[in-house]
């Protein structure tokens, strides 16, 4: 009997459901890339599960022809934990948004990451509440005017990747909905990583927050406002690749190449660095002062919760033998009557 997987196409991963996102929403592009990546992973289709919370992005599982669960607001990582802990052979994806993942579900996100559960978490960051029609979100910038912040948001925003690294994530990456090649490659890297992969995707909500990432997606500006990270390479950006990032003590600074500054003076990207401080520093490079890095910030190996848990079960079975009900019943002091 052949154990070879059937050859699948992206279209095999499309479910029969009508997609209900607004026309022009960035979610379409992420869905398309995800369907493209799926057949390349070497994982049987039936072993893939998508779990989401609540929000526009969280409709995602309905559109994938895999197993899926559209759960409750913010809790997707917790559902994924129960599933992955008891079925470690499944490939589990968590789809969340900035409100779902960082506001109501912040606690679960933090704990899934620190446990390094072997799941892939994709956070669609559109910096707004879309499904509830346009209230500011935990990633909305200060001063953002929305229906619930008519005089401007006064809540200091959260930065998803800084949080992920604070939780000692083993894989952290960023991509952009319209940068489809980069997005596809990033999703694939995330899928291949063992442990929690956390990916932030800049996603445009063209209805309630159109242009939130314009600086990072506009042809005219994007090479100056974003910086593609490559492992082992210096941090260079700009249309003419003539600008770089140099470390000045513990502070990064933008420098012009030439004029006495060579590539060797720049900060070199090391996604495998055990110490996460440099990766954290990269997450703090923000528009407009810095180009915002995209790509893989960090990819290190750490023990995985699901593997450790199942390892303990295995070890207990090895040392004690498969549990017997008789032994469990008669533990401790017993006595006989009659």
């Amino acid at each position, binding site marked *: 009997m052949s154990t070879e997987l059937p050859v699948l196409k992206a279209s095999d991963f499309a479910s029969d459901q009508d997609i209900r996102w607004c026309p022009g929403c960035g979610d379409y592009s992420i869905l398309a890339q995800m369907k493209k990546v799926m057949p390349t992973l070497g994982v049987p289709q039936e072993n893939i599960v998508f779990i989401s919370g609540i929000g526009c992005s969280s409709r995602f*599982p309905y559109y994938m022809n895999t197993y*899926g669960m559209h*759960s*409750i607001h913010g809790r997707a990582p917790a*559902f994924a934990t*129960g599933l992955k802990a008891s079925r470690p052979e499944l490939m589990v994806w968590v789809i969340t948004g900035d409100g779902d993942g960082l506001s109501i579900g912040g606690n679960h996100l933090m704990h899934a990451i620190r446990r390094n559960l072997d799941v892939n978490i994709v956070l669609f960051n559109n910096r707004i509440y879309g499904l509830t029609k346009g209230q500011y979100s935990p990633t909305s910038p200060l001063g953002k005017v929305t229906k619930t912040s008519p005089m401007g948001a006064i809540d200091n925003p959260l930065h998803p990747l800084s949080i992920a690294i604070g939780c000692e994530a083993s894989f952290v990456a960023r991509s952009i909905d319209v940068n489809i090649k980069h997005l596809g490659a990033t999703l694939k890297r995330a899928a291949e990583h063992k442990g929690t992969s956390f990916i932030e995707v800049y996603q445009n909500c063209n209805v309630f927050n159109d242009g939130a990432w314009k600086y990072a997606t506009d042809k005219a500006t994007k090479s100056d406002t974003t910086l593609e990270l490559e492992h082992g390479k210096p941090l260079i950006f700009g249309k003419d690749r003539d600008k770089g990032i140099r470390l000045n003590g513990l502070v990064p600074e933008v420098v012009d190449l030439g004029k006495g500054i060579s590539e060797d003076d720049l900060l070199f990207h090391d996604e495998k660095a055990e110490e996460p401080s440099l990766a954290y520093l990269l997450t703090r490079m923000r528009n407009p002062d810095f180009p915002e890095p995209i790509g893989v910030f960090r990819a290190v190996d750490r023990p995985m919760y699901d593997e450790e848990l199942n390892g303990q079960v295995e070890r207990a079975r090895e*040392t004690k033998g498969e549990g017997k009900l008789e032994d469990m019943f008669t533990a401790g002091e*017993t*006595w006989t009557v009659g």
Partner: protein
Amino acid sequence: MSTTTGASPTSKEIVPIPAATVRFAGDSGDGMQLAGTQLTTTSALAGNDVATFPDYPAEIRAPRGTLAGVSGFQIHFASTDIFTPGDHLDALVAMNPAALKTNLADLRKGGILVVDEDAFNKKGLEKAGYEQNPLNDLALEEEYQLFKVPITTLTRGAVEDSGITSQKDADRCRNFLAMGLIFWLYGRSLEPTLRFIETKFKGKETIIKANTAALTTGRNYGETTDAFKSSYQVNKADLEPGHYRNIQGNTALAIGCVTAAKLSGKELFLGSYPITPASTILEELNKYKHFGVRTFQAEDEIAAVCSTIGAAFGGAMAMTTSSGPGIALKGEAIGLGMILELPMLIVNIQRGGPSTGLPTKTEQSDLFQCMYGRNGESPLPLIAPRSPSDCFYAAQEAWRIATKYMVPVMLLSDGYIANGSEPWKIPDVADLESFTIDHPPAAKEGDPPFMPYSRDENLARPWALPGTPGLMHRIGGLEKQDQTGNVSYDPQNHQNMIETRARKVAKVAESIPQQEVLGETSGDLLVLGWGGTYGACVTATRQAQERGLKVSHAHLRWISPFPSNLKSLLESFDKVLIPELNMGQLRTIIASEFLCDAIGLNKVQGKPFAVQEILDKIIEAVG
């Protein structure tokens, strides 16, 4: 001279008695729970029926010597079968003035009162708020058999040769000295406790020596001092023949779940967050990894239940355990479990509420919460075990129903059952009925599309597991279309789905036993109880029956749905009395369901019912 089995020989008079209720009371650092547990074990091994009631403060170490810090453990052991830890104490051991002050009212007149007189010093008296030393009060000696024992001094002397250097460490053996004395008083064997000391403190020779010395010194003190003129003997109870073990409710629940998993060919997953009085289930289940048990100590109550649902989706026997405040947090997710129609157990070990309430005290006030505490129309089956050992069986029944009907089942226990213990007749594994759970197999070429919300004769939907080729489907909290499970906002479909889910829960009644009755099936009064009040209800009903009253007792286990004969049963009695440790929650449900105007007996003091309280109410109603 006669001796009881395994008991220490004594030269003093032995007075046979049918039963005794003893309470150890002291500071929460005094090891009273341990003392109580040891007396329980040795009494159970001596063949008595036993029932226990641990009672401890919410603070781990309230200020030493204060009233708030008093911890107690009550045990009732008898030569007949008993169902409660006893209304009144026959003997009280008070290790300090605070313990005396908070417990004396429960000691019957003429009862035995053992106090550590060393602890009745100025500081101890002040902390307990005594202006005078109560031990000097003549009334105390007149009302009770008072034994002033220098427990601290005796202990320090006893452990002198054991190598213990600090006085603090020496004083930690006081509970063993008190135990030794009480063991002598009731002719109990020291053997089980000596074995316990050996295993518990393995490798710590000094502690083994010291505790052993304290225990035997206590026993010898009883035997040799003139103060104690006689000891007591409680003969073996006429328990059903078999192999026994003493078991606490939460332990029984944990091993009942492991058993249910094993019998159904599943592996157990527990998602839980520590909360009193449910945490001991999480602790206990951690011992059974070699049964394939996976425990997940979640970041919070919500994650605990969500991980449970995730594991249920994957095909595990999934459960979550908590208490009222945690169940409140889980409400939204339980509703999701309900609409996903996945099997799982949601365990609530009730404690005093509302809010944080009385964490370490018992109450039955979460019945409404578990019946109705979710948004939307979301009925679920609900089972309430009635005693510590019943938790073992209730867990298995709950899992059978959950899988047969594809529905989360609420299991409602309480702190009294959870921490209380009783002898459990260990079942023969061969007698336990295993059962299979079907999962739809991989789809074959040409099969019609998989329908995740199609239903069998029990209205259960198929439990298709991720990993099964061809059955890929999506589930979620949005209303489902009948059959396909696709998202549907269709008005008629919503009505249909809500009615179907409710009908399914109602159908569970076909799989649960008819309501049994203690006594006649008709009469003047039916005592209708549920959950942990079982022992008090049975005992009170029996006593009423002995007085010739036409009283019967029915104790509900399944509250949702009710047994199908309950309505006719209620109609066969002139009056119905519902004793509950809440303000009348079952009574309200019974009233709305059956238009039955029952009499309530309601107590919310963080304490179980005394038999007398129920008996008085029965007599008031029909006497």
